[in-house]
């Protein structure tokens, strides 16, 4: 035995990845999973506390099958632990089908190109980093930043932008799968409370592995959640939003196992295969040709010490289609949601915007806002060195634009905005700056949107 690992000798029949039951001398049992074997031993990771397991009297029973999950539409509204057992006091799910939780990769040629936006009601996302169905867009948070509030707000407001807003609106087949990995009871209950209040509880499946639950169980939790999500999306036609929080805890569990196996550690002692392992989770988002449903992922992770180059955010960023980065500076300045749009990115944005989806001027407007804001931020840094006097009049205007952009466009507060409101807000800010500077927007769009209210803007701009 070594930490959460058990070496079992004298095994004749064993298959890779199968589930085992560890029977203790006091009659209780623990679950485990085979992660490696040779003809001399099988290596089993114990999913629960390993307290009480001894070398002499503990027996192990091999199940012969990998971890599987019973599925039926009745899972909606249910709550499970991190290993898929019901914890809401209701009986087990009557299965319509069983699925291996490891899943199999979606055939790349079967994937449908994501194209439908999800309007989150948050300008920094809808306007500049549009979320698209089938996308995986993580929130890079850090200790003390309100990632959970933002996730909950997205849940409350998310919709197609066409009809009513919110997951409970009629006519939409929208479901939420929530996987909690190693978060505290307080954080988890915040989400459960949100689900109740937004009327989404009946369309939510919860898998929770809390901070005081077994660490290794966390390795299975997102896989159970995604198996449920895939079932709901591709068998039942739901648009599923999967929230995985907190991926940093998941990676730490992965590291714990790797260290116990005495593997050669990679960066910050995370295992070298962490990219592949994370990909086997994140890549389970998408749309499939000829199927109505979709799996969209919103993983939340904590950047240790606010470091975006830490292996967890770094490898995540390489797999996911962009990232929403929260900023401590904005948070300190009282701006909510504190989304730093410069390092944030949605790679699929172009697929989800434009005529017929949002509006024809969306791309140009977003580029222009970005460019000006980046310029304003640069000037703000400069101002800190040379003082306001050192800036030219036009530079000062950009610097003021950056302030206003943060306060008014990003810092919208808890109220949701429609896509029209978001775009209009963007134009309102652009009118503070001379028309001939808007070089990233097509001339005809500038003509159409800028001109009309220029006079009014001239007044409010001062």
């Amino acid at each position, binding site marked *: 035995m070594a930490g959460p690992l058990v070496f079992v000798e004298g095994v004749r029949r*064993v298959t890779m990845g199968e589930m085992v039951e560890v029977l203790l001398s006091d009659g209780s049992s623990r679950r485990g999973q085979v992660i490696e074997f040779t*003809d001399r031993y099988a290596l089993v990771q114990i999913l629960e506390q390993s307290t009480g397991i001894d070398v002499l009297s503990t027996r192990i029973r091999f199940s012969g099958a990998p971890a599987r999950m019973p599925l039926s539409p009745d899972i909606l509204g249910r709550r499970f632990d991190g290993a898929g057992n019901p914890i809401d006091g209701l009986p087990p799910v009557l299965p319509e089908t069983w699925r291996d939780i490891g899943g199999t990769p979606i*055939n*790349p040629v079967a*994937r449908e190109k994501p194209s439908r936006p999800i309007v989150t009601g948050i300008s920094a996302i809808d306007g500049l980093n549009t979320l698209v169905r089938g996308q995986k867009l993580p929130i890079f948070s850090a200790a003390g930043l309100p990632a959970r509030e933002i996730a909950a707000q997205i849940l409350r407001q998310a919709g197609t932008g066409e009809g009513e807003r919110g997951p409970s609106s009629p006519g939409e087949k929208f479901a939420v799968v929530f996987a909690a990995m190693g978060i505290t009871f307080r954080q988890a209950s915040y989400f459960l409370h949100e689900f109740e209040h937004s009327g989404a509880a009946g369309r939510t499946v919860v898998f929770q592995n809390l901070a005081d639950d077994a660490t290794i169980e966390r390795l299975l939790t997102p896989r159970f959640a995604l198996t449920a999500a895939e079932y709901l999306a591709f068998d039942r036609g739901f648009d599923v939003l999967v929230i995985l929080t907190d991926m940093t805890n998941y990676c730490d569990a992965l590291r714990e196992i790797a260290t116990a196996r005495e593997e050669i550690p990679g960066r910050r002692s995370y295992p070298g*295969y962490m990219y592949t392992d994370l990909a086997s989770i994140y890549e389970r988002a998408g749309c499939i040709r000829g199927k109505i449903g979709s799996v969209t992922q919103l993983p939340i992770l904590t950047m240790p010490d606010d470091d975006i180059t830490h292996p967890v955010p770094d490898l995540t960023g390489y797999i996911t289609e962009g990232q929403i980065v929260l900023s401590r500076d904005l948070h300190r300045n009282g701006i909510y949601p504190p989304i730093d749009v410069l390092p944030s990115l949605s790679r699929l944005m*172009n697929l989800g915007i434009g005529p017929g989806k949002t509006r024809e001027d969306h791309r140009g407007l977003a580029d222009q806002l970005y*460019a000006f804001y980046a310029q304003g931020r640069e000037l703000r840094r*400069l101002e800190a060195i040379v003082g306001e006097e050192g800036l030219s009049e036009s530079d000062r205007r950009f610097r003021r634009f950056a302030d206003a952009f943060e306060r008014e466009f990003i810092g919208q507060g808890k109220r949701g905005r429609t896509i029209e409101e978001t775009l209009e807000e963007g134009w309102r800010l652009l009118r503070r700056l001379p028309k001939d500077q808007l070089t990233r927007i097509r001339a005809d769009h500038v003509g159409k949107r800028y001109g009309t209210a220029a006079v009014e803007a001239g007044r409010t701009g001062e």
Partner: protein
Amino acid sequence: MTEGGIIVRVSGPTVVAKNMAGARIHNRVLVGEDHLPGEVIRLEADRATIQVYEDTTGLGLGEGVTDVGKPLLAELGPGLLGSVYDGVQRPLHAIRAKSGDFIGRGLSSPPLDREKRWEFRPVAREGDVVCPGDVLGVVAETPRVDHLVMVPPGNGGAIRQILAGSFSVLEPVALLADGTALPMLQRWPVRTPRPFRRRLPPTLPFITGQRVFDVLFPLAAGGAAIIPGGFGTGKTVVEHSLARYAGADVIVFVGCGERGNEMTEVLADFPELTDPSSGRPLMERTVLVVNTSNMPVAAREASVYTGITIAEYYRDMGYRVALLADSISRWAEALREISSRLEEMPGEEGYPTHLASRLAGFYERGGRVSCLGGGEREGTVTIVSAVSPPGGDFSEPVTQSSQRIAAVFWALDPALAHRRHFPAVDWKKSYSLYTGAIDDWFRENVSAECTALRGGLMALLQREEELQEVVQMVGIDALQEQERIVLTVSRMVREHFLRQSAYSETDASCRPEKAFLMLKAFLSFHTLCRDLLARKVPVESVLALPFREELERMKELPEEGFRETVNALIARIVTEGGRDR
């Protein structure tokens, strides 16, 4: 086929089997009851270590292993273009037809369609004596690519019989005097470079359609370039732009350990997008090898070899081929994972110590060559691979090893990407070692002044860099008027010349002629400003000159009439300078 191997160990993607005496290194094997494909990568007495190209979940102790007796082979022949393969050349469309939307286990399907018939038009005649590489006949594989059916390496002699008509890939089209029947299909071990007659110097450019590359850091046809950049710096967008607009006859795109949705974009767009030079769908010149990040790592390791073998095959026909790999870091990680399962002594950052030599072996398979066979064909394989350094830190082993081999370094910069300056090429770190070798071509075919223009641009950017440092310290007021003009012009050049939107209809691709002409206009504007300031014209009236907007909108002008419009603009700028004040 040798049966009788027995699984004694499974760890991640590697399997150890005993009773494997007689197996050879790199032989293909079938593992377990599901016949998962694998490859022997180590032998110790009768124990073979095997990397398995599928997920090993469910493999059991004591299950059988069969040695196929041959290495991993690529099938080469008509029908490759337009196909989508996984890392070990399984056709994904056929796999989908078998197992549905998710990839099942132990499936196999021949890479080239056995039923499809191709119209074979013989070129060689009965009685001709042929050698490897000689052309037997031609198949119109797609309307834009004629597929030359060649004598495979290792065969040759007098042709006893040659047929014409419609055949499937396995039916013989020619019979040699020694009795060998040659079908259109040939097989080649993916880990062995295909032979050629000799290497040629890289003196022709590989036109990318991106101004910053073609003008500042040009790549030679047959050369190798790497694009390192942290996440979000636009590596994939650059690779996709190259796949669309690069001047190549055949594109082999290897999606190695990257995102599924990105590949979907390629799959959805390429059949519809047309290539501006021929007006045909891009898919007709493209082969996709797709092993997304959640597909098995061992197959990811194999995918770049599958890709380059296909690229070499078209090179042998005399085509200009581009191999685009996104990303080579994922391939290196697969190598690392397998190496650590083999419990090899790790090198830097856990990568095996043979990483550099394996990378070099891969890049060296690119090149400009004189092909085997009669008729002096000349083909090129140009390799452009994305590199994903952890944390965006270029000092890591994959970037460093690649940099030692590839002569073009297109470094991407997160600061530019955050400002939405795409392609986010860092002109301070990037370089090309080919400029000397291919500038002759540019001078003859594009612009006689190309070297001077490139130098002028680099000098301007360099000057801006220095001035920015001064501004950072003491503010813009400390600058002389001449220096402020440098900042103004260099900003125009950055925004409207170096930046290029991959999503703009007119500007997504830019021919080098257009690029150099644009540059000339910007630089002559700079000269004009300098002259005027030297003649004590106030800086305000210089900045108010009417040319700026015209210069900034140049990139959006259509191809047609571009030369005339811009030449006229340059002429007006020059005249303005001659005017009395």
